[in-house]
């Protein structure tokens, strides 16, 4: 009992300390911009953990665009800055974290536009927020159809159903999944078994592939969903094998099982069965993980093959010079998205006779983008916020290397 009288004091001190920590840390939080001439571009991408292989090259695309913009003479001491936040929690992109990040951007009046997010389920959490705040966002990579089209998209624009703040420079899963199905049929494949990773992107892509493949006369033998972190696919692949498909379609990413499934196909005697996927398995990681099983894999990427595009050459060399590596699959998309925002801000400055535009003015300028010259071709946005130049590329892995096969403009 002797020690008891000290308790409330200790308690008070601890409470005070806790408040102190909380308050102290707020002071360090970035507040409203000091100088009016700094315009920030918010970047919300997963840059830690398993998603970092996608997120970092994509963020580099934004960084390059911002640095190049600042290198040119800008009106009235204007300066662009990248304000980048990470939406990965413990290595996995997290919608809740994405929403927090967007709220941080919204609270910072210097942010006039943002690039991101990378993942479709994160976009679902973010679109209602940017819609409410009138902050324009351009995603480099979201392919989920419901983000821009149909009832699903309407549900996301909760505050201002008529004002769209969400744009994307890549094409959508309905196009990618359908194109992959067309592509598979062209390869002469008739019987598909579909496996997806039960995430927004993977399942969305797989569902579209399933419908489209069947519509084009293919037979869908089954559709299974794997679990995050699953390691053993032998039972699943035995089941698949017993259905004797001539191809497996995988909806998902390398990290979510795309590599392991392909690798373990060897163990159940399916080495020669073709393996078709979306852009989720288009990374270096896939080649590394599947090693000698990489051959016979095919995938689509919702972007043009940059090395084939004249306007892309300059981007690829600038990227290589700045970061010492080749761009990732979505670096050019992020670079183009940032260029569109930067152009929209500069147009606003010009229209306002030197004064910074409002967020809604920037949004207006982005929405009006047509024939914008970028490394991924001429970009414009339709009413939904989708690109008017939807280009898809096909790749095959042969002798352990990805080879560009074909590209397709899938305007609908």
């Amino acid at each position, binding site marked *: 009992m002797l020690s008891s009288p000290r308790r409330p004091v200790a308690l008070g001190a601890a409470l005070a300390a806790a408040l102190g920590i909380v308050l102290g840390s707020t002071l360090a939080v970035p507040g409203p911009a000091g100088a009016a001439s700094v315009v920030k571009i918010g970047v919300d991408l997963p840059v*830690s*953990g*398993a998603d*970092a*292989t996608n997120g970092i090259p994509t963020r580099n695309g934004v960084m390059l665009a911002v640095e190049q913009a600042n290198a040119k003479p800008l009106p009235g001491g204007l300066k662009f800055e990248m304000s980048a936040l990470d939406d990965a929690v413990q*290595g996995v992109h997290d919608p809740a974290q994405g929403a927090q990040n967007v709220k941080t951007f919204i609270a910072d009046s210097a942010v006039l536009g943002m690039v991101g997010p990378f993942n479709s389920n994160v976009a679902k959490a973010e679109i209602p927020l940017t819609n409410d705040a009138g902050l324009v966002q351009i995603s480099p990579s979201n392919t989920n159809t419901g983000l821009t089209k149909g009832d699903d998209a309407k549900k996301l624009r909760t505050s201002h159903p008529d004002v769209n703040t969400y744009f994307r420079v890549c094409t959508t899963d309905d196009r990618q999944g359908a194109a992959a199905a067309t592509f598979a049929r062209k390869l002469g494949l008739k019987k598909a078994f579909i496996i997806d990773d*039960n995430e927004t992107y993977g399942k969305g892509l797989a569902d579209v592939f399933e419908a489209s493949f069947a519509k084009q006369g293919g037979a869908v033998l089954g559709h*299974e*969903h*794997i*679990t995050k*972190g*699953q*390691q*053993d696919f*032998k*039972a*699943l692949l*035995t*089941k698949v094998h*017993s259905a004797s498909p001539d191809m497996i379609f995988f909806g998902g990413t*390398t*990290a979510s099982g795309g*590599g*392991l499934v392909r*690798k*373990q196909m060897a*163990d159940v*005697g399916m080495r020669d069965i073709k393996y078709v996927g979306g852009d989720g398995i288009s990374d270096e*990681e896939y080649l*590394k*993980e599947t*090693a000698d099983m990489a051959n016979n894999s095919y995938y689509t990427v919702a972007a043009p093959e940059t090395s084939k595009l004249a306007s892309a050459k300059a981007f690829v060399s600038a990227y290589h010079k700045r970061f010492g590596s080749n761009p990732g699959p979505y670096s050019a998309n992020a670079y183009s998205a940032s260029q569109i925002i930067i152009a929209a801000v500069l147009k606003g400055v010009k229209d306002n006779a030197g004064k910074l535009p409002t967020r809604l003015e920037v949004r207006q300028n982005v929405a009006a983008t047509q024939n914008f010259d970028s490394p991924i071709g001429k970009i414009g946005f339709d009413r939904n916020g989708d690109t008017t130049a939807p280009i898809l590329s096909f790749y095959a892995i042969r002798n352990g290397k990805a080879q560009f096969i074909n590209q397709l403009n899938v305007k609908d």
Partner: protein
Amino acid sequence: MDVFLQQLINGLSLGGIYALIALGYTMVYGIIELINFAHGDVYTLGTFFSLAILTLLGVTGIVTGPALIVVVAVTILGAMILCGLTGVIVERLAYRRLRNAPKLAPLITAIGMSFILENLMLYWHGPSPIPFPAVIPNPAVGLGSVTIQAKQIMVIVLAVVLMVVLQVFVYNTKLGKAMRATAQDKDAAQLMGININTTIALTFLIGSALAGAAGFVSGVYYGSTWFLNGFAAGLKAFTAAVLGGIGNLAGAMLGGFLIGLTEAMTTQFISDQWSNVVVFSVLVLVLIFRPTGLLGESLPNKV
């Protein structure tokens, strides 16, 4: 029927890995009544250690001839020793001080140790799955309409052999007798001149070494590893230990095989996405209806 038999083989090989992990759970629980939550992560660490040893040996693919035996022996023993030591260190750091504390306390430190080990592995090899060399030639043996791979035979045989060795050790050696005595009554055992601390450390050493062996085996079997594998695998192995009757070595193996079969059959006859739900439902149901497991004896609440 063919598919059923093929899935039986798949389930048994998957179960073999669970069985090896479950042996460690059951030993530790048997002696100090602690669910060593970090055990699943020691198993993953086993794949990491194996990978490091293989890298040191310069092995990147399939090894043949006499070199194969040397490589496998060196890697397995190395992984077993390193994992065994890890287990001993974990026990010394996180559990020994709490041996007489309320049960909640060491269970919470066990969760803490699990998180610590997972994150150390995250630093070691990063967050993506890591390729693991094939090491063993993998011819498939045809048995009628089903095929068994060399790797699958290896997993099942190794699980059974190690279980038998362990059984012999625990029931026919002096050290084994000390372990059983400690499990029954620590104070009495101490009065009989048994060094409790050494005996418990030995239990952790052996259990964790088995996890190390399981680590090597699973690396070869799947051709990959990942820092978070231990969580799900550990939980399923624990389910296996409970199903077989915790504290019972043969039970742990039986449970492992049953859980592996449950998983494979769920995938075949229901759907892959429900396999975890079914396995964890088995865990909940066994604990509710037969907490002593299939081969376990009833454990009265200690007064």
